[in-house]
């Protein structure tokens, strides 16, 4: 498993360059940052960098600097006078003057020189040069010529010298390639290491001390085979390997967005289906067919639910925020991309906008698959009787009726608020507005908010009143503001009258008059309305034309001062309107709400469903979206399988959406990719690296197989064994290669630094799930319940296996994210392995670690009479599967003299030995 696989950073700080003391490292790093890096980046890298490497020199990475140019090293750490780089920038030598365009500034030269003198510390990691991509892609050579599209060929394993080691065909392939490089395999791992490795590999848990003992005692040649068989038979196997598949299936139980997101509360049914299928060793071809077309295949009625649950691969897919025109196309893309990368190792989704640049996949191919997805719709299959479903639907309808009624009531009552305010509060706002405008004369900084608070009014309404009352021009057309106009006309713009009670009383009177006017006008409006309808009724719909009306000015006053858009504006839908309702209305509203609560309480919870898919009522044939744009359409692309993997002249799919035909085409022996891709994945999980190092990309941009014939052997064996994954595990694990020690020789590290040839076993860090589960296991707390609804990982009493954690696309659990769990919005074929201090904080300080430490301490100190050293020894056996050395025991006992047991237990749980598997 590539350390930070795919990131492409090489470890580049050469300790040989760092000759300074540790204290200086920090300073030098800062110096480099501020003084050296900018000079290199600005003046050197354009010719000695990623695009050009004049004289073979790169100055954008420490690696490049260390390597030097065609004439050797350019920097001798500590000796600027011997360093060609310094020479060059100083223009000492007429033949070597850099940069050629002009000499650097003195400060810059001095900085470079000082930097070299201090050891040429290069404190950062930089991108390694990308592997040069010589694109002799599948497309270029024709798909029959590209390795992954060729039929699987079974080749006789080569003969090797080391026949004692290379007994199985797998080992013969591996041994032969080691021999070509002059490498020898590592010795066989000791039995303790081997059982720990195998147990974590197959179950994600550590072996118990009893299991280790039994294996040690079994001296038969089949001892390890028995262990493998035992492990494959436990349900823990399915739990472990299901997670590998769920990474690919971008398993999640919700959506990333929030607004009207589709949630999957029973998404776990799919997860449990994967676990059960793996435990049952369901043939891999069937495993795929059920996930793609479980609703369309025959089988026992008793397993129907199971077949539907398998459709979670699509049913639990992304449903994006629907506000964009491309969302539907994006959702189809999610399904195509996930399916094709997971099963075929092909990046078909690259052909969405243009023919695939490197692989034989056209836009027509893409839209043919998109047609299949377009003919497929999300469907929730009830896991309840028809009666239960009906009961639920009825109660939901009743809830909607009541909810609508409440909303309508709030709305209609809310509409009345401005009128009520106008008839009750106008005077108060007129006064407040007057106070504010006066107070500002004395203190321009006085705020609306302050005055509103003092006067007991609301600031935003006051803002509106001020805007209304101060519009001098408009006021001229407002007869009912005549008194107000007169009042403020006399105001001295400099004198604050707001503190004078007599002046205030005058304004109060004006405001009251306006309020009375509004009250009378509204009353008149209402009685005119009543009169109008009475008149209409009386005259049988032929009203008199000279009916009395309000004046235009009155109507305007009502609109501006007493409507929802007026000075007392109120958003009737919001909570604010509610707070302003009068008490009687509030009481009625409360009653209605109580009724709603009662209805809700009486109604059943939503019945359980299976989140899956079904064929749409009629199949769909999409047209190619030119440049991926749904608005510009090309030729029709009827549903069919990828042309490069179909026989010439094959016909489009004919049944419904075509999903079943697609499933059959993918899960076919004749399809060379499906078997190769899955055996490579299984291999990669066992050895930490695939035979093809890019497990979801077998195209031209992916890596080439390190052992192509071995890959084909495994693929052929899988099909011969009825697509049995358990048989595949056995064949892989019972090799000499798998049983090697993880110790590497210096030669191996030099000749084959990435251990492509597997001359030793690759040490690995446990994934977060296995690490957490292992802690719960050794403390004796693990809840071994299989399956069922997901549990929040943050819940402190969650002792289930990590597989059962809720997986959110919206907000992935912090522990999972911190420890390299992949983003469930996207299919993922490999875990990153990052090592950062934030993870250390979890180890040092988290509640989870503290609780495990206490539980482990309690487990090891249960017997009050037991001696401390004996407890320590038991701890080592329990956690590491090996006896403690005497000095390790002594270290522990010494520590425990002055520290509580929980502190020691936490150290054991935090150790590298517990986290890494040899």
């Amino acid at each position: 498993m590539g350390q930070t696989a795919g990131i492409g950073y090489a470890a580049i700080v050469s300790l040989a360059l760092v000759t300074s003391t540790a204290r200086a490292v920090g300073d030098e790093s800062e110096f480099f940052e501020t003084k050296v890096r900018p000079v290199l980046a600005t003046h050197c890298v354009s010719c000695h960098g990623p695009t050009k490497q004049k004289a073979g020199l790169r100055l954008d990475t420490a690696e490049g600097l260390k390597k030097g140019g065609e004439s050797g090293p350019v920097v001798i750490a500590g000796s600027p006078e011997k360093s060609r780089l310094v020479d060059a920038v100083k223009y000492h030598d007429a033949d070597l003057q850099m940069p050629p365009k002009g000499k650097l500034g003195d400060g810059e030269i001095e900085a470079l020189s000082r930097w070299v003198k201090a050891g040429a510390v290069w404190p950062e990691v930089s991108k390694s040069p990308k592997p040069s991509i010589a694109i002799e892609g599948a497309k270029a050579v024709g798909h029959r010529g590209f390795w992954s599209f060729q039929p699987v060929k079974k080749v006789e394993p080569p003969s090797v010298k080391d026949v004692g080691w290379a007994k199985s065909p797998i080992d013969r392939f591996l041994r032969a390639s080691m021999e070509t490089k002059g490498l020898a395999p590592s010795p066989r791992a000791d039995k303790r290491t081997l059982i720990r490795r195998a147990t974590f590999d197959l179950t994600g848990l550590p072996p118990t001390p009893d299991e280790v003992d039994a294996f040690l005692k079994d001296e038969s040649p089949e001892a390890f085979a028995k262990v493998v068989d035992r492990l494959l038979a436990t349900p823990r196997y399915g739990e472990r390997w299901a997670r590998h598949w769920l990474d690919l299936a971008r398993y999640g139980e919700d959506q990333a967005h929030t607004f009207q997101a589709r949630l999957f509360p029973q998404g776990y049914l799919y997860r449990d289906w994967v676990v059960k299928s793996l435990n049952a060793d369901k043939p891999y071809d069937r495993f795929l067919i059920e996930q793609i077309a479980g609703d369309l295949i025959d089988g026992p009625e008793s397993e129907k639910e199971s077949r539907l649950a398998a459709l979670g691969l699509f049913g639990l897919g992304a449903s994006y925020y629907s506000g964009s025109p491309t969302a539907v196309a994006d959702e189809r893309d999610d399904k195509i991309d996930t399916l094709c990368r997971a099963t075929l190792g092909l990046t078909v989704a690259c052909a969405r906008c243009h023919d695939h640049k490197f692989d034989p996949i056209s836009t027509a191919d893409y839209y043919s698959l998109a047609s299949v997805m377009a003919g497929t719709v999300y469907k929730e299959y009830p896991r309840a009787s028809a009666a239960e479903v009906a009961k639920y639907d009825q109660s939901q309808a009743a809830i909607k009726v009541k909810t609508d009624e409440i909303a309508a009531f709030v709305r209609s009552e809310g509409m009345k608020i401005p009128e009520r305010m106008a008839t009750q509060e106008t005077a108060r706002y007129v006064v407040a507005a007057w106070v504010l405008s006066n107070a500002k004369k004395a203190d321009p900084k006085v705020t609306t908010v302050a005055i509103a608070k003092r006067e007991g009014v609301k600031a935003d309404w006051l803002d509106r009143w001020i805007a209304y009352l101060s519009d001098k021009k408009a006021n001229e057309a407002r007869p009912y503001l005549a008194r107000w106009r007169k009042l403020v006309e006399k105001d001295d713009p400099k004198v604050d009258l707001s503190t004078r009670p007599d002046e205030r009383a005058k304004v109060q009177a004006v405001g009251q008059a306006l309020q009375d006017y509004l009250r009378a006008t509204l009353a008149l409006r209402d009685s005119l309305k009543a009169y109008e309808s009475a008149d209409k009724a009386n005259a049988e719909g032929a009203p008199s034309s000279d009916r009395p009306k309000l004046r235009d000015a009155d109507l305007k006053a009502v609109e501006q001062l007493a409507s929802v858009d007026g000075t007392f504006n109120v958003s009737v839908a919001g909570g604010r309107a509610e707070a302003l309702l009068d008490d009687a209305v509030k009481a009625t509203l409360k009653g209605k709400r109580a009724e709603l609560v009662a209805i809700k309480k009486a109604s059943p919870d939503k019945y359980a469903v299976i989140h899956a898919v079904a064929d749409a009522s009629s199949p769909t044939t999409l047209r190619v979206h030119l440049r991926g744009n749904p608005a510009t359409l090309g030729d029709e692309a009827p549903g069919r399988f990828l042309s490069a993997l179909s026989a010439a002249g094959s016909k489009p799919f004919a049944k419904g959406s075509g999903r079943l035909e697609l499933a059959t085409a993918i899960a076919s022996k004749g399809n060379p990719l499906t078997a190769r891709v899955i055996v490579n994945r299984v291999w990669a999980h066992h050895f930490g690296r695939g035979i093809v190092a890019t497990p979801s990309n077998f195209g031209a941009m992916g890596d080439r197989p390190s052992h192509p014939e071995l890959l084909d052997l495994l693929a052929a064996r899988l099909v011969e064994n009825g697509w049995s994954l358990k048989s595949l595990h056995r064949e892989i694990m019972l090799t000499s290669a798998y049983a090697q020690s993880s110790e590497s020789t210096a030669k191996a590290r030099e000749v084959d630094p990435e251990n492509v040839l597997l001359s030793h076993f690759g040490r690995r860090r446990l994934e977060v799930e296995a690490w957490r589960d292992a802690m719960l296991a050794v403390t004796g707390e693990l809840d071994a319940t299989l399956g069922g609804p997901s549990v929040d990982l943050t819940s402190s009493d969650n002792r289930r296996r990590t597989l059962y954690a809720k997986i959110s696309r919206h907000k992935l659990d912090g522990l999972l994210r911190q420890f390299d769990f992949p983003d469930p919005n996207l299919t993922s074929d490999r875990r990153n392995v990052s090592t950062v201090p934030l993870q250390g904080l979890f180890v040092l300080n988290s509640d989870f670690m503290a609780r495990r430490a206490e539980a482990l301490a309690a487990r090891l100190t249960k017997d009050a009479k037991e001696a401390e050293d004996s407890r320590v020894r038991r701890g080592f056996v329990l956690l590491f599967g090996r006896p403690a050395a005497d000095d390790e025991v002594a270290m522990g006992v010494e520590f425990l003299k002055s520290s509580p047991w929980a502190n020691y237990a936490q150290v054991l749980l935090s150790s590298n030995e517990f986290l890494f598997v040899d």
Partner: protein
Amino acid sequence: MTPLFTRREMLGSIGGGFGAVGLAGMLAQEALADSASPLAPKLPHYAPKAKRVIFLFMNGGPSHVDTFDPKPELTRHNGQAPPASLVKGGQAGRTLMGSPFKFEKRGKSGIEVSELYPELSTCIDDICVIRSMATDIPNHEPALLMMNSGNIQPTRPSMGSWLTYGLGSVNQNLPGFVVLCPGKPVVGPQLWSNSFLPGIYQGTHINNRSIDPKHVIPDVNNSRLSRDAQRKQLDLLNRMNVTHREARGNADPMLEARIASLEMAFRMQFEAQEAFDLSKETVATRGLYGTGDFADACLISRRLAERGVRMTQVYYGNDQPWDDHGDILNHRNHAKNSDRAIAALLKDLKSRGLFEETLVVWGGEFGRTPTSQGAKGRDHHNTGFTMWMAGGGVKRGHVHGATDEMGFVAVQDKVHVHDLHATILHLMGIDHEKLTYRYSGRDFRLTDVHGTVVKSILA
């Protein structure tokens, strides 16, 4: 038995200080570099103008015609039907609404700013206003995702993640990308998601509704053990891990890296808490920023800038406060809550010599319609809106681009969000076409296949 102690003693004698800190420093530098620490600082593509970004995100979408894009014609035609050529479907039937806020020329540059920003407008000569922004979709979720990740679906890394991926972080004791929000903006964590980039590049979201330095970062504080007890525990752990490493030939950088990272975590506990501790600021400084969640967040962003955090994003408020459909006068409250703090941040950065190397970005996911919604509000608007930048490498007192006379469409020097991203990356020393990550068989970029650096705003 362990060279660790030898080194530690050596360090103790050199540094004269707390040995463990020196040890951590040394181990950190060597081992993390050895193991290709994903957060170690990296060389940019060319000399950067800015070393870090502070993105003040006015979530909900502030109205451009009420803040930085004055439209007298809009006021003149207040209440009239908008020109048909400028209006798209949703706004049909609505009428033009002039800004209720007065604009005034400010500073030497004479850039017009509305009365909403009395304090900030005193800094206008340091600001580069972009009046010609455009984004794809006038809905919050896709527009938020576009502004943060360059894509309308939640399947791409955020800009902060790209920046930390591309440049690393100068301070290994703090996350490289910090997101402050009193609560959570709409969409939420996907806005600071690492997506397919390694998890370390995810933004660390801190709810600054109440800042407690003990809880700003998950597990940053140990409430059970004293520092000494924890040191003792870690010393034992180190000894066990070194024994384990030595038994495996000292050949595995992963083992050394983890030893170092635990040491760094120990130190981080204290440094990280200190970074978020506003009580360390003087009364004068706190007074400069004013009070409130947003003011506190702005001040924290400056503390993080000083400490080398690569990108700090400050969301104005919980949910989407600027989304004033009902009443544009509410903008007054949002401006009031942020005006002083933004001005203070710019001035404070200047007085500390950080302004030139810090890029401050202001804006929301989109603007608001020049037409009214309801009687007093404005709807979402994507075809023309305003953002501004200040500091690291952008022109000062400069206006770039323009919308039409009513403020509907960016008609001059349009800047799409992709262009903005390309420009921000450029200022940080990154060629947006070269910062790629291989995933799904192709190289992904923040700007996808789009984006042009807006050269004319570069200082």
